[in-house]
């Protein structure tokens, strides 16, 4: 392997706790993290260092599981085990809690903003996926509650350009949702994983979806087009590639880099892996190879991988040991 993954720096982000998730702001100037200490922290670059600019500690009563920036970068959403989702508004260097979205019966596992910034999706252990609409006055209204999963829903992610939502669940399935009339419905169910699906990521164009699972594999799904000639219905997705044999434990997160097309994974074996696509392969049967592997990236489970939106190859990861690490991925290919 000529490709390298080099450490840049390490932060003790949520000491004595777990760091569950990190998210870069759209311009990449800020990094938000959240953890078992019920807090959200905002990190910014000072010279060569990253410093904690802000601690949002009064929003949640329990673990904050995920954070998400709005596409404009002025809002931050945090999903918590206290069954609520907080919407934070950026004011100069500070954040104020704008509103608290209530309604889920128990732990909210994930929150994601649609590319338009007008829609927000949340999912929960209560098995439901909710879609919220934001108006000009920062008022949030629930536009749909979809119950397509039969178990805990772990992750939601929006398509990069269309109003299409995907969710991953403990029921081993992935669901794809679209608006129909004035409600949202599940248009496709992706079956193939043999255990919990932990996370999802669309490729930069939105033609493919990567899913990672407790079954130690990553699967690549592709939307079927009517021209495929395989009789599949419009809106269906098929698995075109399974990355197996690379991970020795649960794969908790997967992220497709919009700038380089590389695929990063976070694994329960404490490692971080980067995959690259063989560009000579048939697009209907893509081939991915392991480009870089950092075996002990953290001293405990790696929970999240997040590519910097503007600096190619810059990757943030976080772990059960409360740390954030930033890496530089370099590929000669």
């Amino acid at each position, binding site marked *: 392997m000529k490709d390298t993954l080099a450490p840049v720096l390490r932060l003790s982000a949520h000491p004595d706790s777990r760091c569950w998730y990190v998210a870069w702001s759209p311009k990449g100037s800020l990094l938000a993290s959240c953890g078992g200490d019920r807090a959200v922290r905002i990190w910014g670059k000072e010279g060569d260092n990253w410093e904690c600019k802000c601690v949002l500690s009064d929003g949640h009563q329990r673990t904050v599981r995920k954070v998400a920036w709005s596409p404009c970068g002025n809002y931050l959403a945090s999903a918590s085990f206290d069954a609520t989702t907080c919407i934070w508004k950026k004011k100069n260097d500070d954040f104020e809690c704008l509103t608290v979205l209530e309604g889920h019966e128990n732990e909210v596992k994930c929150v994601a903003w649609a590319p338009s910034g007008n829609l927000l999706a949340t999912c929960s252990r209560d098995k*439901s996926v909710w879609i919220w609409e934001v108006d000009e006055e920062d008022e949030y209204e629930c536009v749909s*509650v979809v119950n397509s999963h039969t178990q805990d829903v772990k992750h939601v992610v929006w398509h990069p350009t269309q109003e299409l939502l995907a969710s991953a669940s403990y029921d081993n399935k992935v669901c794809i949702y679209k608006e129909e*009339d*004035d*409600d949202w419905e599940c248009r496709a169910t992706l079956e193939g994983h043999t255990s919990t699906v932990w996370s999802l990521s669309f490729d930069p164009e939105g033609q493919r979806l990567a899913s990672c699972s407790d079954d130690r594999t990553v699967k690549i799904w592709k939307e079927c087009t009517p021209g495929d000639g395989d009789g599949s219905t419009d809106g269906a997705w098929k698995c075109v590639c399974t990355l197996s044999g690379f991970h020795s434990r649960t794969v908790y997160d997967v992220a497709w880099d919009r700038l380089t097309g590389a695929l990063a994974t976070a694994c329960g074996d404490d490692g971080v892996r980067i995959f690259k696509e063989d560009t000579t392969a048939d697009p209907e049967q893509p081939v991915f190879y392991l480009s870089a592997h950092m075996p002990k990236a953290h001293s405990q489970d790696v929970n999240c991988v997040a590519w910097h939106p503007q600096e190619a190859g810059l990757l943030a990861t976080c772990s059960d040991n409360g740390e954030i690490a930033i890496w530089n991925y370099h590929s000669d290919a």
Partner: protein
Amino acid sequence: MASHFSGVLQLTDLDDFITPSQECVKPVKVDKKQGKSVAKIQIEDDGSYFQVNQDGQRQKLEKAKITLNDCLACSGCITSAESVLITQQSHEELYRVLRLNKVLLSSGEQKVVVVSVSPQSRASLAARYSLSSSETARRLTAFFKNLGVHYVFDTGFSRTFSLLESQREFLKRFARKEEDKKALPMLASACPGWICYAEKTHGDFILPYISTTRSPQQIMGSLVKSFFTKQQGLDPQKIYHVTVMPCYDKKLEASRPDFYINEFETREVDCVITSGEVLRMLEEEGVSLSDIEPAPLDTMLSNVCGEELLCHAGSGSGGYLHHVYTHAAKQLFGVEVEELTYKTLKNKDFQEVTLEKDGIILLRFAATYGFRNIQNLVQKLKRGKSPYHFVEVMACPSGCLNGGGQLKPVADQSNKELLQQVEELYKAEHLSAPEQDTRVAELYQTWLESVGEETARQLLHTQYHAVEKSTNGLTIKW
């Protein structure tokens, strides 16, 4: 098994897929008996338990049973309630009672079986058999009577009472809105899915807003087990009262302790079956409604004019918004409303009607159907941002005509097409105005006057109970 309950009910307490026999945490009361406590317990091959005393005496032990009431009073699972429900309220149970009646024919121990059919169920069955709603009623009457049912009534009749009581309750609430912050908005109470959700999830915060007026089903319960029994000279437990409803959740409503007559150990509505279950009965009997010879309607407790059944104006969910609005406009502001203009808000299941005079909004009513819209309504109330005076709340998207107990579309038919057809059949009946119903007015004067004000109130109104979240160690969720 897929749950039949409305989406709202399935959403509360979602992670339970247990049946009471497995993991129910409801503590069961055990009557302790004095005496020696040394004994063995033996389990037989059939699963029954025997206590074997030291002297070798064997005694069969009673099974601990979880009743539906236990389930409803518990903040635990809802799926358990369902499995209990299926054994207590089903068309099988109705068949059982009818069979028993035949056996008891000569003994005089027979029960008088009364079936009250909802207008929504009628319309659903009418669509399947391409009949008018009234024709469906006449044929259903014949079908049930052939099975041994004695009377077939129409809950449109009791709905007239429910609408009148809602109108009156609204005026009272409007009058005290300054001193009582929870007088308005008045939230409609006819939907049991909504009530159960409100009690389990939003408890004391939301319950004061909910109208105390009973639903048509439960006013029918009063009419049948209080008025009709007296008329027939029967005790309430001598009548087996069945309702036919568009909704599974109505079974829960009938089982509420509030609708149990302690004195006679009987429910006001003994059994609720859905429109779909009636279809199954027809299929089991091998008959089609199209081939049944119609029978004359039982007019005593039916909303009829001659041989035609009547309908109420407004939504297919009972028309609560329509009737409360027109009545309030007239009584409070002297405005005769000819036609209501519904404005669709976020989606077709969130509609608004306003009464304006000189640019000022005097009344603002809404119809809010389905879980997502109920959520927004509740959140608006919690934030003190609800602009409404009255809201017709229903758990099902599109309301009762689209209830979970209605007939499913046949092949090649979309749910939307079917719903439209059912709606047309429902609305094809002539309208009746509750205020002008002389028979109902007469019952207010005779029956309800005679029982006294407090009893009359109990017969037409009910109450709600917040369900405490269980703090039992076993149910803590990590």
